[in-house]
């Protein structure tokens, strides 16, 4: 080919490639304003007891919004609010909502919403939303976010985990609490803490990590301590009766994690790995004392997720609970 032809080739390629990308963008733009099939809904105006709240996924105009289904008919009609949340927890009085505001300067915030979904407080969140939990009486809530390092490439991550009181005071970073493993204090600089679950308004459980360790820690807000209970436990979640902890456990390697859902019973120091073959990167939620809920990513459709239910005793495999859903939060009757 002579140079003129080669330039023509480059010009035509540019038009086709960039035009194609623009066309894809236009279709995506249109789709982002449509309502996908199977997610027809009514507006959600408040929190009702006996429902599961969740983040709607699956694309379209409702993607990312807080939605609700009835506990006894999770596959039935859903209510969808106008409030976007990346991650949420809820009780009958309100919602803790972690939210990212995308832009040239992306910001993250923690919103506390009342029972009619109106914000009562807003505070900046240190990084990308990851986990949030309310305490049983709703007096406390915890947030975990990923703090991206300091490069566009974003390769240097740590977590920021803080416990807040409703009165606005907070615990400071949990990684500044005294971490005690086998009776000795751990002072390593690489300690990260994530995935808080509350026992009451003083005691909680979480994951503390240093090096290759992922300890389940029992935390005390008054003593400001974290005591390691066992290794290899991430994102614990305390059952409503307080007898068991569900968590994710890495059955892969450090650089290729494959997370199983497991349940730990402290009373007889027993761990049951549940029969869920997929890798589950979530903090499980207890539907009741026998059943767990968690989000599972769809292999064939990036960004789409479903919420599954599984028996906590390992006696049965997972079942689809809510389609196109993420971050379930049970609002008990």
């Amino acid at each position: 080919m002579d140079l003129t032809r080669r330039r023509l080739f480059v010009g035509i390629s540019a038009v086709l490639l960039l035009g194609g990308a623009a066309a894809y963008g236009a279709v995506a733009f249109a789709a982002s304003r449509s309502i996908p099939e199977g997610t027809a809904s009514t507006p959600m105006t408040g929190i009702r007891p006996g429902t599961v709240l969740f983040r709607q996924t699956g694309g379209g105009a409702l993607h990312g919004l807080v939605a609700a289904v009835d506990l006894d008919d999770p596959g039935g009609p859903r209510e969808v609010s106008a409030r976007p949340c990346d991650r949420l927890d809820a009780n009958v009085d309100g919602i803790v909502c972690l939210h990212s505001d995308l832009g040239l300067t992306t910001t993250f915030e923690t919103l506390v919403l009342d029972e009619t979904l109106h914000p009562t407080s807003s505070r900046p969140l240190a990084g990308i939303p990851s986990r949030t939990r309310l305490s049983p009486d709703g007096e406390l809530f915890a947030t975990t976010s990923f703090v991206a390092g300091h490069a566009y490439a974003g390769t240097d991550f740590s977590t920021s985990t803080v416990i807040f009181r409703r009165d606005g005071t907070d615990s400071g970073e949990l990684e500044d609490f005294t971490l005690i493993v086998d009776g000795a204090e751990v002072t390593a600089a690489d300690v990260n803490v994530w995935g808080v679950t509350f026992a009451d308004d003083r005691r909680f459980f979480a994951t503390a990590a240093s090096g290759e360790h992922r300890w389940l820690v029992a935390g005390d807000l008054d003593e400001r301590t974290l005591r390691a209970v066992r290794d290899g436990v991430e994102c614990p979640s305390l059952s409503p009766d307080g007898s068991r902890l569900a968590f994710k456990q890495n059955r892969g390697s450090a650089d290729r994690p494959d997370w199983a859902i497991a349940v730990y019973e402290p009373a007889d120091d027993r761990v049951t790995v549940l029969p869920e073959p997929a890798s589950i990167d979530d903090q499980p939620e207890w539907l009741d004392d026998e059943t767990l809920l968690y989000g599972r990513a769809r292999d064939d459709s990036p960004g789409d997720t479903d919420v599954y239910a599984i028996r906590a005793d390992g006696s049965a495999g997972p079942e689809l609970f809510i389609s196109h859903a993420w971050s379930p939060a049970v609002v008990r009757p």
Partner: protein
Amino acid sequence: MYITLSDRGADDGATTGARTGRVSSTVIALGVVSLLTDISSEATAAVLPLYLTTALGLSIVAYGVIDGLYQGVSSAVRIAAGWAADRGDRPKPVALLGYGLSAIARVGLLFATGFGAITAVVVGDRIGKGIRTAPRDALIAASSDPAELGRSFGVHRMLDTVGAATGPVIAFVVLLLVPDGYRTVFVVSLAFAVLGVVVLGALVPDRRPRAEQATTGTPPSPFRWRLLAAPRLIRLLVAAGLLGLVTIGDGFLYLALHDRLGFAPMWFPLLFVGTNLAYLALAVPIGRLGDRIGGRRVFIGGQIALLCAYVLAALPVAGVGAVAASAGCLLLLGLFYASTDGILAALASAFVPLEARASGIAAAQTVVAATRFAAAAGFGLLWFAVGSSAALVVAASALAVVIPVAAILLRPRASEGGASAWT
């Protein structure tokens, strides 16, 4: 500037030695390839952490560890690619392989959902980057008037940086228009990456530096590792390595500015933008300065600029003074990049026989990458131990000691062609 896209015929600049006043169209084409590829990679990089967490629901603490591991892989690949380019006397196909691999990785991003798959895609992209850099810089050297290497590399790095600055802007404009439109970002990113490969394939000539030299009289010699043992290249590698060991990484400098100014974290990206603007504005003038006063002097001058940036970042000033010092710091950091990145490649390419050019460039870039990686890790510990100001003072002192050593190492020797700009 005398940038032009006009065709200059088949023997396009190169080894004729005639001053033309124009930058070779091959260099411009390579710059456009880098611009398109950087738009692609920076658009992806800007949204990847958000995509992993908010769209795929993955936690990403392990990501940093993985990145560290593959830095090593990237270095090994870089050396191998330099060797392959020299050995076969054809840098272009090797560069094409590298750009192509990164483009294919973008396709993977559209379908990958699991942590392992995403990791594989990111690693593929990094390996592609490792492969393409040295052969591409060898092509720039092969397509440039030897007396104007500085300007050629300056023009290339300017275009490259324009792409790096544009990519994140495009990504976030897409996300503003299409909420959760990560796939659209990846599709746009793929289009730019493929277009970069097309420009490289169609508009960059498949040069054979060794065979071309043979036609001008000097008999060709095959690549031998011994060619890399040229004393002035060794001294350049030692100097660059020593300097790399006392270079602390931009992230720490930005954190120091953040500590002092106390701005909201959301403005953090503006520091990158400031540095990039300074870099792209200065790349060409500094390259031309190198052509006039010599690349070695400019390279050492760049290190002095970095030293001044450390000092400005550590100065205990407040208020307007702090803002001015921080702006000066970003300007100096841009000056540092303009005076070292392309200049180092130009020096390395000039310090080895052309049969070993890609390998020489790869060696220099690997030394810098490896020593900076080690320095960032070490400096991180120091930062934790003594705090930001004291750590900066330590780094500045170390740099102040190393600069004169590097200057002596890089002093031109009469036996090696004396003091002309790029010998």
